[in-house]
């Protein structure tokens, strides 16, 4: 039998290694390392990353390189746990630091922070149990990151050509990112991070044609393919049709001039419209999918009764979902009742709407990442804050705490779905992945909250040293809601358009168009170019070419830049870089 890199012996009789102590320990340790690094980097630079792909590469390095054992599905468990521990970072740093900035953190006992966010991590996972069948098996959503990670996991057994393409993509993307960061080391700026093509082409200032030179985003588009073309079309509608028409019709205040016009239209018109479309589209999608969800539930119930030779079932029983919903309800009820002093009736209403909202928001985020890899967490947080402020009689600390539960839950749901897509492609058993995530995901919020507390004590938050841009954005949202400046009319109009679009028969159309209006054009263009290249390659060379050549190369492009962002986060934590 031909041997591949790292393959040691032919194990004819051993049971297949999947959930092993090594995989769990490695996943937790690597996830904790990424969570700590990205919490700090996120509060300084405003970005985080899931880190699944990096975890898969580290997994191969340790399982095969050092320990001389390890299987595809075992490494899948490593990346599943690592990304589950790490992913809650974004849910925490988007919300909790806002409490510190507003000086309200002492109004809530630290234990509540841990309980609310850890429960959010568990809820996100339980709520997507029935959606796995619908999104991955029935709707066949692409999940670009999940697909890229599966490509990495399968590389050692896929032959040298695929491995070569993957590494070429990785090195190219890492190198370009490194060169773009040269000014941080005091070196010349050779490759910029963005190019203003509009000024190169002498277009009017109000036409936004700035493009991010990100090979990671291009790679995401390369994997997404046709679905992403709708995002590109929506971006064109938003930036190159609506903006000029709105300007020509004189719907822009006279004091908004030049390049500010594009930002004004985006901030006050198309972005809130996009958020409304996302919501309307996902609600219509949910209604249309009810028969499929019923099939999925029935199939889940049957599958959980079917045991393998070791007495394990492939699907997590449906009572995990019921248990998750009850836990979510109880947690939100206790939090609202104890911390908010809202009275029993209002607390019950808050808990009920909160549970329903976590379910809808988890569905929406999972759908968006499934179709495009983009996750509209900040837009959904705005809606969460708006709903919760009204429900809690504008109790800001309680709203932000519950917002953190929602944020952690929805980012966890999207990550779980990406991991389950990877699992599907490598033949993992879903219940095993879901169980290890349930057992470990709560660690992430604890790590992130501890780092936030340490940063607060050491440097303070919301200053030059730790600007916490995402938390500042949330603070602005809270101020806007308290000041009555919420564009509810845009949400309703967008919601109606998104709802009708999703009835078109094109799966997820409302969500895709909404997402494209919500995203900045900066990333839509490189992403759209990737989608166009995928489509052309598929038509000219066939589907086999996509699987054999395009996917490994695109996965490499995504991993290279992601690895460099982690490296830069670590260098920042270590104090080597001063952003």
């Amino acid at each position, binding site marked *: *039998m031909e041997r*591949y890199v790292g*393959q*040691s*012996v*032919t*194990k*004819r009789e*051993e*049971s*297949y*290694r999947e959930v092993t102590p090594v995989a769990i320990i490695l996943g937790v340790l690597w996830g904790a390392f990424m969570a700590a690094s990205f919490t700090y980097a996120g509060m300084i630079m405003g970005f985080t990353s899931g880190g699944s792909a990096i975890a898969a590469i580290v997994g191969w390095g340790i399982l095969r390189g050092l320990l001389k054992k390890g*299987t*595809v*599905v075992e490494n899948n468990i490593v990346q599943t746990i690592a990304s589950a521990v790490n992913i809650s970072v974004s849910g925490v740093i988007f919300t909790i630091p806002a409490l510190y900035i507003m000086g309200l953190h002492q109004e809530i006992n630290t234990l509540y922070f841990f309980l609310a966010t850890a429960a959010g991590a568990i809820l996100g996972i339980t709520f997507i149990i029935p959606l796995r069948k*619908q999104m*991955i*098996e*029935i709707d*066949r959503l692409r999940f670009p990151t999940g697909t890229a990670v599966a490509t990495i996991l*399968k590389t*050692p*057994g*896929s032959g040298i050509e695929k491995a070569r393409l993957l590494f070429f993509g990785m090195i190219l993307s890492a190198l370009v990112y490194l060169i773009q960061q040269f000014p941080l080391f005091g070196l010349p700026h050779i490759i910029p991070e963005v190019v203003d093509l509009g000024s190169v082409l002498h277009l009017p200032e109000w036409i936004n044609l700035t493009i991010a030179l990100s090979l990671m985003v291009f790679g995401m588009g390369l994997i997404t393919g046709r679905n992403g073309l709708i995002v590109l079309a929506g971006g064109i*509608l*938003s930036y190159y*049709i*609506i903006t000029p*028409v*709105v300007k020509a*019709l004189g*719907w822009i205040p006279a004091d908004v001039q030049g390049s500010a016009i594009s930002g004004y239209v985006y901030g*006050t*018109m198309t972005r809130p*419209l996009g958020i409304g479309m996302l919501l309307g589209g996902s609600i219509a999608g949910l209604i249309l*999918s009810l*028969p*499929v969800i019923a*099939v*999925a539930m029935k*199939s889940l119930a049957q599958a959980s009764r079917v045991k393998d030779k070791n007495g394990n079932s492939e699907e997590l029983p449906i009572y995990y979902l019921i248990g998750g919903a009850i836990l979510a309800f109880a947690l939100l009820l206790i939090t609202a009742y104890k911390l908010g002093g809202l009275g029993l009736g209002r607390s019950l209403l808050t808990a009920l709407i909160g549970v329903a909202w976590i379910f809808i928001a988890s569905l929406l985020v999972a759908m968006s990442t499934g179709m495009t890899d983009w996750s509209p967490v900040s837009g959904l947080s705005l809606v969460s804050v708006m709903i919760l402020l009204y429900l809690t009689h504008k109790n800001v600390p309680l709203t932000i705490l519950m917002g953190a539960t929602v944020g952690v839950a929805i980012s966890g749901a999207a990550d779980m779905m990406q991991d389950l897509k990877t699992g*599907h492609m*490598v*033949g993992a*058993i879903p219940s095993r992945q879901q169980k290890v995530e349930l057992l470990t995901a709560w660690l992430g919020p604890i790590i992130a909250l501890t780092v936030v507390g340490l940063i607060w004590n050491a440097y303070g938050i919301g200053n030059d040293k730790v600007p916490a841009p995402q938390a500042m954005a949330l603070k602005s949202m809270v101020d806007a809601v308290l000041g009555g400046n919420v564009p509810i*009319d*845009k949400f309703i*109009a*967008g919601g*109606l*358009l998104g709802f*009708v*679009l999703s009835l*078109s*028969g094109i*799966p997820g159309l409302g969500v895709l168009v909404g997402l494209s*209006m919500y995203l900045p054009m900066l990333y839509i263009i490189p992403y759209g170019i990737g989608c166009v290249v995928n489509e052309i390659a598929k038509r000219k060379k066939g*589907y*086999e070419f996509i*699987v054999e050549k395009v996917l490994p190369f695109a996965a490499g492009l995504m991993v290279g830049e992601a690895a460099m962002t982690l490296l830069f986060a670590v260098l920042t934590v270590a104090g080597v870089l001063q952003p």
Partner: protein
Amino acid sequence: MKKLVGNVMLTAGLITGAIASARNPPLWFAVGGALFIMGAGIVLRRQGEKEELHRNITKGEGGEVELKKILENALTEIETVIKEKETDLEKARKRLGKVLETLETFAEKAQPLRIKGIKFYGEIMTSFSKAERHLNRAWSAYADGYIREGDTYLESGYAQLRETSKLLKSKS
């Protein structure tokens, strides 16, 4: 033709509706008109799609005819894999990899089945996806050198794919 007209109406309605919604405050009358045009476009589009599907089926291309063919070919290929793995496991695994790629085509081509009812589509895809996941596990197990595990899942993936084929035949 109906589908094309439907698509044009849907796009025109969306553009009009989005522009009318962008105004502060939105032009609700125009938004309502745009929603009506979009609704009419959707009805035409769906009718056109149904007619297209039926035309393809009568011509023997696309739809269930093509899907059945893909499944039958995949089943034949897996039978070859089952025989081949006894003599040349690596060749058999490569063949299995190719089968998995053709199954991706099945998933893509099955999308129009939604027109025949989302429940029907859901049942087919649930069965198909289970087969696909088991075959993926067989591929991984063989690649890792775990022959027994690979054999178990190759057999169950094959059996599940046969189930999908039966289901498709019984429902069409």
